[in-house]
């Protein structure tokens, strides 16, 4: 039986291509693990960028690792501070940005700001961090979200923190892919089903063919174990 976090990490890893630059922000453990996995398998020339400003960091994620801490600088080849990662994306040089959010609709709009009205919110959320500028400018924006329910995947978001250019959303149940201005189901994770996805999604599902997300291979699982000994990839599920 595959753990959801491993399925998601592998699915996210496979969305990355060799030679790309990839960025993720604070508390982005799954993307970090996914990127390291990609680098160890099909994308050895991936350049990993992050908040502390280390370009091209290496596994493993040991005890000292924190998503915004200095540990990420130590195995980096170059310093490339957060501000410059944004600059890179603005000038069209960032290939992939991993981002998250709290509400998503079928057009790929992302809400990370408020539930309810912006000025008198029912819930004030943490905020979109970089997503409002990265989603429109990165060549591909990939969203991961560890909850898949009708409060998360809604018919209309309460607030559009960012819109456009979301290439994929990876959830515990499936991978949404963008087709024109819509999210469609690209693949359903092993153990889930299109029915289950539909039941937990607030917008109508569309898809071209019934595809199953490949299960993690033995090699991938071994690499995950080795690179992420603290099991940070499961942190959002605990």
């Amino acid at each position: 039986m595959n753990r959801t976090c491993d399925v998601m990490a592998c699915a996210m890893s496979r969305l990355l291509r060799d030679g790309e630059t990839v960025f993720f922000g604070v508390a982005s453990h799954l993307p970090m693990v996914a990127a390291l996995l990609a680098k160890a398998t099909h994308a050895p020339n991936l350049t990993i960028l992050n908040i502390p400003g280390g370009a091209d960091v290496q596994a493993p994620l040991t005890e000292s690792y924190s998503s915004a801490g200095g540990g990420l600088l130590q195995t980096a080849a170059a310093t490339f501070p957060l501000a410059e990662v944004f600059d890179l994306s603005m000038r069209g040089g960032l290939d992939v940005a991993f981002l998250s959010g709290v509400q998503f609709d079928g057009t790929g709009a992302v809400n990370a700001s408020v539930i309810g009205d912006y000025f008198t919110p029912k819930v004030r959320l943490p905020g979109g961090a970089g997503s409002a500028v990265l989603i429109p400018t990165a060549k591909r924006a990939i969203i991961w979200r560890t909850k898949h329910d009708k409060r998360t995947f809604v018919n209309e978001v309460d607030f559009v923190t960012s819109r456009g250019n979301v290439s994929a959303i990876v959830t515990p149940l499936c991978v949404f892919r963008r087709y024109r201005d819509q999210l469609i189901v690209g693949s359903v994770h092993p153990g889930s089903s299109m029915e289950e996805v539909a039941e937990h999604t607030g917008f109508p599902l569309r898809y071209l063919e019934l595809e199953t997300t490949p299960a993690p291979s033995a090699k991938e699982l071994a690499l995950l174990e080795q690179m992420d000994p603290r099991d940070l990839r499961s942190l959002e599920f605990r």
Partner: protein
Amino acid sequence: MKKLTSLQEAIAAIPDGAVVGLGGNTLNRAPMAAVFELARQNKRCLSLVKTAGAMDIDLLCLAQCVASVDAGFVSYETEFSLAQHYRKSVEKGLVKANEHACYTVICALRAAAYGAPFLPVTGLREGDLLRVNPCFRRITDPFSGDPVTLVRAIRPDWSILHVHKADPDGNGAILGPQYEDVLLSRASKKVLLTTEELVDRDYFRQGESKADIPGFLVSAVVYLPKGASPCACHGHYSPDKEQISSFLRLRDRDQLMEWLKGGPGGE
């Protein structure tokens, strides 16, 4: 011209209503000891500025020091979850959340550092932030005729930064990630450094490694080992999870004031 001072004196110089930039990022190298003192001195109506804040902003909201927050992200890292005091203060209408993309805070600070009224932000093209945040304006690029978004400069009255090493003249150095600290030192009218280590005047002048923040930009230096605790300080200490959890259990301002008397960071 004496810059080396006590935390009490340094914080006393920051007036109610000031625009205050905070160094560090989420649970890393936030100037927590100075934040505690802002709360102890009962500052009011501060406008906080930071790309990504956590306990610093959360605590100042609980202490009722805050009028507004300009930030891209306010939350603890995964294991501590949302910044509940910030969240509730905004929901109750006590604090105005001016949501930015982290980058638009950077651009607004760069504009201030460059003495410019605004900076263009190419990436911010649509969505509701443009509508609700008065920092943004869409204009026509006079060169190309295309639309472009501008973000207005944010010039903090003070920035408070916790650095690794500083000398008595205010020259300060950060080891490891600098986050937006160096930018804040340039963008702000005045800078307060708290420092993990106090070095003598020859340290930077004679040494190979130079200060990142020149003394002439700095108004006050406070020698304050563990000044970022319970947040992390790269190379010195990790987040103090017990202290953070103990803070997260506080329910109101009175409990916070009691807790602050206990002397967090000093234990």
